[in-house]
């Protein structure tokens, strides 16, 4: 009996280490998320905006914009908030954007010489866009270029000043708003590939999944859908920074 007890105790001791061991068959492979969830993006861009005012049919070839401001463009700054509603083979979503641009020049005297006060054209382009970006290749195959496109509605409040106030001509206030549409095509370079570790820290610390530098071409018709009046349409390049969060 004593021998049986000793054997039993020895068997128990021998079994103890085995309790802490997992067999291969009992391992369950769990996927550990490598980044925070992506829900949207913040986009900041800058570029020259030269409205096609001189192409208004009623002007019959006259060029008031060029005569006043020359060939220079307005410097336009825009911010855009994007919300993703599809993330699979690429990313799709909706976005809202708002910008501001202004251009100053000397007002003119009747003989064409420069007056002592300034005149300015100011615009605040607002946009509501549907977009798609093909970032599948970047995420799955490590190709850091992301082509994308947008299509949307544009509304651009504008006003023209002379001196310290809005210019009035023939009783009409030089301010208003124009509706239009725009299409955008661009390509973004994913900066994560340059500093992967920094990109991971950026995500874990601030929730920014990916960052991009981009260039895009915008085709915008902003003339109340052909309704006449001030033509704020443009064909322009914009450049900027995008942050997925």
């Amino acid at each position, binding site marked *: 009996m004593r021998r049986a007890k000793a054997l039993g105790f020895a068997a128990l001791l021998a079994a103890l280490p085995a309790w802490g061991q997992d067999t291969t068959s009992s391992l369950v492979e769990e996927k550990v998320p490598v980044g925070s969830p992506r829900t949207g993006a913040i986009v900041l861009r800058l570029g020259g905006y030269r409205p096609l005012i001189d192409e208004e049919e009623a002007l019959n070839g006259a*060029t008031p914009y060029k005569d006043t401001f020359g060939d220079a463009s307005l410097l336009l700054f825009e911010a855009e*908030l994007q919300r993703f509603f599809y993330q699979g083979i690429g990313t799709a979503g909706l976005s*809202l954007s708002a910008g501001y641009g202004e251009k100053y020049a000397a007002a003119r005297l009747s003989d064409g010489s420069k007056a*002592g*006060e300034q005149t300015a054209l100011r615009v605040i382009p607002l946009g509501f866009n549907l977009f798609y970006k093909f970032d599948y290749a970047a995420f799955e195959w490590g190709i850091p270029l992301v082509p994308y496109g947008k299509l949307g509605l544009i509304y651009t409040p504008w006003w023209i000043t002379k001196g310290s106030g809005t210019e009035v001509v023939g009783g009409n*206030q030089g301010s208003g708003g124009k509706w239009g549409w725009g299409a955008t095509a661009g390509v973004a370079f994913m900066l994560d590939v340059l500093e992967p570790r920094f990109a991971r820290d950026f995500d874990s610390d601030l929730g920014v999944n990916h960052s991009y530098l981009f260039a895009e071409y915008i085709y915008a018709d902003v003339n109340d859908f052909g309704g006449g009046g001030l033509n704020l349409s443009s064909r322009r390049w914009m450049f900027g920074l995008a942050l997925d969060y």
Partner: protein
Amino acid sequence: MRFLFVGLLLFASTALGQTLSLTVDNITDTAKVIGLNGEDCGDKLQVRWTLTGGVACQDMLLWVTKDSSCKDAPVTATGDYELPSVAITSVNNPGNLFREIEVDKLPVFAATDGGAGTCSTAKVEQTMRVCASVKLTNVNICSDTALRVATPVLVRFDTQPPPKPTIDAVSPRDSALGVTVSAEADSTVVVTATLPDADGGTGTVVATDETTAVEGIANLEGLENGVTYQVTAKATDVAGNSTDSDPSEGTPVKSDGFYEAYIGAGGTETGGCGAAGGGLAGGAVLAALGFWLSRRKQS
């Protein structure tokens, strides 16, 4: 050693919160200089005080000095003008009590002050400080160190008119004139457009604009294009002394802004109503943005 440290700490913490401040003629902005001239000689300025963070253990001293800073007490040798002191009981709780500075007793008129004659005949320009000091109780002991007024109020007695302001440029604008002026640093400048009488008389003032010597730019608006106006600038210092500039002339001219150029070229934009629609659209976009962001915050 530990007690010494604690004692120093207690002393320091008390001293940090102690403030003695003055107002003169109820002007609380201590950066503002109170200007006086010969016409104010019969006037009196009321001085009030506020002591916070401490309890007075001696009468409070008040005086006016020409020195560049306030000392612990008036220095009669340099001609400081001492006001009646304030009793201990009234330092912390002055109620409606005040002291008066008699303008004709300011320390700038007597020969010993460097002035000459009396207030009404003096030709001086002197900035003075209104000072106060009081000793406070510190751990049941009257401190040896006086608490001085935090920021002395500045009083300037000035009978000298400022230098003549200069009209550097008159820029013709549409129904307006832009005037660039130079004047003594602390002066206010009023620029006036006058339509001279046909017989060469004084004429009628049709537009004025006030600026400062620092800004130096005035806009005369509401003028008629093609009419020549006489432009003058009057600089007034803080004491109320003033000097006129030499007259200059300017003629407003019609100018065309971009909208005029656009309409003149045949443009059909009339603006106006579009702005109202745009306001609605912009409001809708902003509302959508706000809704979107609020949804994001909740999720």
